[in-house]
């Protein structure tokens, strides 16, 4: 059970949060101009890494804000939390 540091509320128990899948997958600005394959890439393809992964989380039972998390899925260590719209760390 994670202890998650919401960037707006502080440390809260995991059960207040909802996981929202891989982060930094931007919705294409012009979907109609994409091929089926390109659209499928956006729609379906997710990395699901064993290791360091960038994720979206939502403080659903709190401030309801979405934010980003860098988590090592192999040991569940949360490396970093940063707000939506902020650039992901390079390393």
């Amino acid at each position, binding site marked *: 059970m*994670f202890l998650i540091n919401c960037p707006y509320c502080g440390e809260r*128990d995991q059960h207040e949060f909802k996981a929202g899948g891989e982060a930094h997958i931007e919705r294409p600005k012009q979907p*109609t101009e994409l091929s089926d394959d390109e659209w499928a890439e956006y729609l379906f393809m997710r990395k699901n890494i064993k290791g360091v992964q960038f994720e979206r989380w939502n403080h659903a039972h709190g401030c309801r*804000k*979405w934010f980003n998390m860098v988590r090592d899925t192999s040991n*569940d260590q949360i490396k970093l939390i940063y707000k*939506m719209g902020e650039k992901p760390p390079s390393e």
Partner: protein
Amino acid sequence: MAENLRVKSSEFIDETIRVSFKFNGKEYYGFKGDTLASALLANNVHLVGRSFKYHRPRGIMTAGSEEPNAIVQVNDNTDRTEPNVRATELEIYEGLEASSQNCWPSVNFDIGGINNVISPFLPAGFYYKTFMWPASFWEKYEYFIRHSAGLGKSPKDKDPDIYDHRYIHCDVLVVGAGISGILAAKNAAKNNLKTLLVDEKNELGGATIYQNREFNKIENQSSSDWIKKEIQELKKLNNLEIKTRTSVAAFHGYNYLLARENLTDHLEKKEKQGKIRQRLLKIRAKKVILATGALERPLIFNNNDRPGIMLSSAVKKYADFYGVVSGKKNVFFTNNDSAYESALCLHNKGIKVEAVIDIRENSGSKIVKAVNDAGIPIHWSHTIVDTKGYKKLNSISAMKLSNDGSSVTGSKIDIVCDCLGVAGGWTPAVHLFTQSGGKLTFDETNKVFLPNKYSSEQISVGSCNGDFKIKEIINNLSINLKEFLNIEKTDFDNVTVESEDDNSKRNIWLLPSDKPLGKTKPFVDYQNDATAKDIKLALREGFRSIEHVKRYTTTGMGTDQGKLGNMHALGIIADTADVKMGELGTTTFRPPYTPLTFGTIVGRNVGEYFDVFRRTPMNDWHVENKAEFENVGQWKRAWYYPINNESMHEAVQRESMAARETAGILDASTLGKIDIQGTDASEFLNRVYTNAWSKLGIGKCRYGLMLNEDGMVYDDGVTTRLGENHYIMTTTTGGAANVLGKLEDYLQTEWPELDVYLTSVTDHYATASICGPNSKKILNKIIPDLDLSEENFPHMSFKDTQIENIKCRIMRISFTGEHSYEINVQANYGKAVWEKCMEAGKEFNITPYGTETMHLLRAEKGFIIVGQDTDGTMTPIDLQMDWIVSKKKYDFIGKRSLYRSDTMKEDRKQLVGLLTDDPNIVLEEGAQIVSELNQSPVNMLGHVTSSYYSPNLKKSIALAVVRGGKNMMGKKLFIPMENKTINVTIANPVFFDTENKRLNA
């Protein structure tokens, strides 16, 4: 006359208080402080159960939570009955009744003994190979197996007890109150850290408290006297909470632990009443100190499972702590010095020790010398090759071990005995450590797995960290605590410790016998009856992974999770497969450490508190008017309103006709309502709905369909434009929360530039929907000065108005196809407005209808219900709702997916109407539809999604999804049911008033 095998009184047992209890129907007594196991042993009862597979007699083996055999059913045939209770942990109380769990029909009668005789035919994997195939035979085996399997009985009645949950946040949690735990907790608390100390036992002090080890001295006192003083001081500390009878069940990530605090299980029945039985502690600790100790290992030899064969440390604990004599003639069998402590302890209490069998060649330690001086014969380099005695051990046979330990030589020594204490070394209790995600390392010298990499702010101290001698425990604890707690000193930095320092051990995982392995029974897992032979068989059959061997042989899969035999199983696998134990790894220990009862897990969330439910403001009226309710999400919705013993069908038929013939009224308060404001509100709706919103006039309503990005229908509802930058969206009852979440997600992450604000207002409004030809007259009576003309208040528009002085919002929208009005008022006026409608509608026989009639009426009109007629695989095109998909809009959620090759296929399942050839047959929802009856395999075209008998059309109607159904209008299809085939024809899904004339009637 019951026996009472006690030595001179123990300070932990109150011999002045006798406690009567029943075991397997027979009356016994023990004393206050006894566990069921200690009391039974005092009564010379060793046989407590039968083994799982071979039904072999089994006795008490241990004195703790690792017990594999003495598993009992408590208070059978009462509402407090509980299976899987370990007799070694169960404190006796007046009136306790317990029985052996695996002993059908009785512990002394051998029904499954037949399995023991035919055991060559019951090897590993036997259950998989035999009973599971052929499948049809399972029913025949099942009765026999289930009865003799000893899995315990769950209570049939409601649990009468109260359970509780409590959150605890602390700086330091210390698990285990042995010497390490006591010292750790004391020093944490003394350094101003808020500390919680828990232990599964009822006494603090672990083994140190009773083990008067001859050669262990702290500050020149016996270690037990010294720890007692420490405990006295500990109890005076302020920021320390101590919880005994509290077992940590799970250690999750981020130092989140679950513990069960047992509050009344040791109390008499009358004292249990009205008290909380168990409390689940949800602990979040900044730092965790595991001081969980070590479990003694048995040795694996032929017939090592007879009643009377116990762990050496257990024999000692029963004598020291409970004052109980486990046997009158004791033998110890060991590979290290531990057994000598037990032997000496018994000897000093005047209990006879016949011999010590030691597989080592010798040991020169002080304790061994003391045993020797006591005149107890020691047989070096010997192993036990067999044991005798069916329901109770009566003798053992030993032989000399070969130098390499793989075989035996010489002649047999037979020793008559009734108790054998076995000492195979110590296994650190690393279960919680591994649960937390910690990684182990294998210590080749001591043959133990030790904590290596921690996954959170925690340390393991004492014997669970591999420190077995009191000197190393105290020295290492002092160093580790200072570093972990970041403190300068501990209060035991300078204590003087004397302890026996001989660690010599000869480790042989599987001890040889004079008979070959196939003819012996060396049990590795007592609870699941797995022998060394089974493990070797699994390896021969090609299993290599420890996790596979575990499942195939069931080793370690009992309620004890193989706490005793796991290491031996690993050792035997490693030896046989010739791999290193460290490389083999270990099986995963999963929570809970010991079984938890469901009551503890659910706590107070039972009965009406099981889940949250929501009631509408009109709920009381529905109850008074005898509505039946159905659950829709968390809502309790009125389902139908039966009058004079009407069946559901009769009530729904009456309600449906009334709604079309005169007037009906529905409580629609549960529909999700989202208030949308902001200068970009119209643009936002354009992006989330399939149709266009920019041109919707203020005061107008529009139906919208919302898709997922994959193009599948997600939700629907009517949205009303209240002002230039202000809308109110309605969603389905069940979808409200998810729709809000999805909209917020897009606003926060994809379109943060949009100026839009969302507020859930579902609970703020109550909604009464009146429909039918007389609805207009009824509304006119309620609000006489509102102009209800088509010009002023047409279909799909709304009015802000007042009912007397209550503000209300009226939408002229319809889900039934009838002329209707949805009256929205502030929630607390809901019931008053509903009653006003009923009063005004009385002369028109206004009829309240529930969700079932609503479903029927909309099905007559072919309106879909998202989640009933759709299932996450339906696009609007599949639903034949092309009209609602804007061709002009550049983009909206899911638009691109509607042009994927897959979503454009002609033979997708499409929504159609179905009519039965016999208009009186009502189809079953979910029934499969086919075009050919005698095809193999059958080509399944789709299924029925909604089906009703329409009282207004006087025939059966249905909606269905059918592969390529759009182009099958008029086609005859079949619905094969269990005992008949129903002929159906594909029809237009709009069955009633296809021209929508009634909307404006």
